[in-house]
């Protein structure tokens, strides 16, 4: 048996630091919103001429007076991602860019993807993204509140917030782009983290009923160990699947799978070191679950 409980305090401290740092990052550095949430235009371009590279593209685009233009390599050497604000919301901008690029590069390039999101739509998408995440947290709260005693609910919700905040903190730290698929990833993380916590909590509650003489500090450790191989196997298979998406699923899914990978790692960690420690700190005992049983 591994003594997870020996490190409860250490990891609680670490998590607190992580959350504070993440919140500071989110407040002061902010998130790198993609065009889905900020509005603007995105062009994925494939070149068939080695003359076309990041710097020559950047030169060309900067001459077109499009405001802040970002040009990046996208996956392999011939693919590029160009993003700009399109402040004036010029409708013919794509056509104008094509004419302009034709002059320098001829026919040696191809627009593989074009996205243009107006300011109104991006504001709506952001709003519905925030609502979706809040709503999912609220639903999880309600679900766990129905299924478990309030001490458990508190633990699970704290673990959830930890996972979402720290994942977003990592995205802020590395300026990784937040787009629609990241919202999907965050929601899935919420589901996964909850799932992981609930499995351990189920066992804690079962053990609470079974043993009256074991303190919660010990009992959580027993429960974590009993469910440990399941925790490891499920995290492992989920991570294997996600790594396959990350490495082979193409550039478009990179951000999504990265967010999910982070979420699974944090979710697994928080089930053990946040959700359970809340039970310990709230001095949950056999009485907590038996009282509830009586009511039922």
């Amino acid at each position, binding site marked *: 048996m591994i003594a997870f409980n020996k490190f409860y305090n250490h990891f609680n401290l670490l998590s607190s630091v992580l959350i504070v740092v993440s919140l500071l990052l989110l407040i002061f550095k902010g998130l790198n919103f993609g065009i889905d949430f900020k509005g603007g235009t995105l062009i994925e371009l494939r070149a068939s001429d080695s003359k076309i590279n990041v710097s020559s593209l950047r030169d060309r685009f900067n001459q077109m007076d499009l405001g802040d233009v970002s040009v990046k390599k996208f996956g392999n050497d011939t693919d590029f991602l160009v993003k700009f604000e399109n402040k004036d919301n010029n409708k013919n901008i794509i056509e104008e860019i094509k004419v302009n690029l034709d002059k320098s590069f001829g026919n040696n390039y191809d627009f593989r993807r074009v996205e243009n999101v107006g300011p109104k739509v991006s504001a709506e998408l952001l709003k519905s993204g925030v609502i979706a995440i809040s709503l999912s947290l609220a639903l999880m709260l309600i679900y766990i509140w129905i299924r478990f005693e309030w001490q458990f609910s508190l633990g699970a919700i704290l673990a959830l917030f930890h996972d979402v905040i720290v994942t977003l903190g990592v995205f802020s730290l590395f300026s990784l782009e937040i787009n629609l698929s990241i919202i999907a990833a965050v929601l899935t993380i919420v589901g996964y983290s909850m799932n992981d916590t609930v499995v351990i909590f189920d066992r804690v509650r079962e053990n609470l009923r079974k043993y009256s003489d074991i303190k919660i500090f010990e009992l959580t450790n027993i429960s974590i160990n009993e*469910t440990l*191989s399941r925790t490891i196997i499920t995290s492992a298979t989920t991570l294997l699947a996600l790594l396959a998406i990350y490495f082979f699923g193409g550039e478009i899914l990179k951000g999504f799978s990265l967010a999910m990978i982070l979420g699974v790692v944090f979710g697994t960690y928080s089930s053990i070191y946040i959700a359970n420690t809340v039970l310990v700190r709230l001095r949950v005992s056999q009485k907590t679950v038996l009282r509830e049983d009586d009511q039922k």
Partner: protein
Amino acid sequence: MLYFSKLRILFITLFSVLFILIASSNLFKFDDDFFDKKINLGLDLQGGSYLLLEIDNEPVIEQKLQNLTTTIRNYFKEKNIKINNIKIDNQNIFFNVTNNDKQSVLDVFQDENSDLNPYYPRFKSHQLEIEDTGLNFKVNFSRQGLIKLKTSSQDQAIEIVRRRVDEVGTNEPNILKRGNNRILVELPGLDDPMRIKSLLGKTANLTFRFVTNDENDRFGVEKLKFENGLEEATVSKRIIISGENLLDAQPKMDTQANQTIVSFTLDRVGAKRFGKATSTGIGKQLAIVLDGKIISAPVVRDTIASGSGQISGGFTFQTATDLALLLRSGALPAPLEIIEERTVGPDLGQDSINAGMIALAIGFMLVIIFMFVKYKIFGLITNVTLIINLFILLGVLTLFEATLTLPGIAGIILTVGMAVDANVLIFERIKEELKDETNNILAFDGGYTKSRTAILDANITTLLAAIILFFMGSGPVKGFAVTLGVGIFTTLFSVYFIARLFTSIYVSRNKDKEKLI
């Protein structure tokens, strides 16, 4: 938990085979309609263009209010009430009446049977709201009035959009209403939406009006620019004929002048009016105005009674074709703005499919190998179940002809990773049971029973997340929610029926073996 009746085994087998057959209809052609269904590929996978259009209703509201001022004035004139100082400001109509008339004006506006101000009993609301500000009356559209106005202009606009898109002839366009002022256009297989965008961007409001020098024209005059933006002309507001009078319009080559023209045919009313106007207006310039700009203003030389004519204006064949198309399909009730556009080229779509499939295959292999190494024979059971699960998932998606997107494929891969969770929970529980229990059958039974709540909890939480995503998410992300959500149900089915069936067969044959798992 381990007992299966023959009937149940039959049911499980039939069910699985059915869905595997449905799933395989994506690969093979079936003659039967029921089986010959296919998963739709999202625009991000097959390539195509997604356009979200917003109707700008401001001009419509302005126009309606403008008409209303006349209606109000005439309506009360008949009742011998004089309306003074009527004007429009910021989408409100203001007017004065004498104090004696105030009540009767209010009565007319608040009468539920009023023909001036329609009443919608279903919403308990009038079309217009009236307020006595003390100084004057303020009339504006009520909430319901505005909604009615918007939906009706949306209904008209979607019809025109459909006609224009159909005329261009893309395959299976998808044109849907969004809210009460938006239209969604999905154009599969179209990788350059430039032409459609420019066609949808034009209101195509066509009028024929005389050019005049008389500032005191009875109908009022306005200065309009020519298409080239350089010249200007003063044009009467009197409309001779408008786009509504057109029966047909076609691009043609005028061999005499060696230029491309648009020839048009008028309906009976239009032909009559056009004939009359051209007979009285010989020598005058007739301006052809499209969306507030003059295309050309030829001099009338003869009476045109045939009901057909032509528009010239320095067209290329392409611009003439497009103008003819716009005139044939009719004018939009209000300008449209493209507020969101997402276009994916077909080769990127194919690349995404390939990448998704490779990731699926690799993810699948990794999970299968992992499970086999970890659980041996029970890993094998899990793996076979996982494969069947995948087919059932694809079968369900096919049956409902769901749209598969790139995030949707990610959802399937994720399902593969998470689907083993339920089996793992069961197997681990069985292992624990076997510590105190020597009877294999009882231990397996206990394992299944005791792991049930955890499995249910775990899946419900993921399902909740998927449901929210389905309702809040848009486009490709919705595809992720669908595969993730459907995946949960197929996973539970395959774990509790298929995997359990295999397990029960294996355990009952080896019930005396030690260290079974």
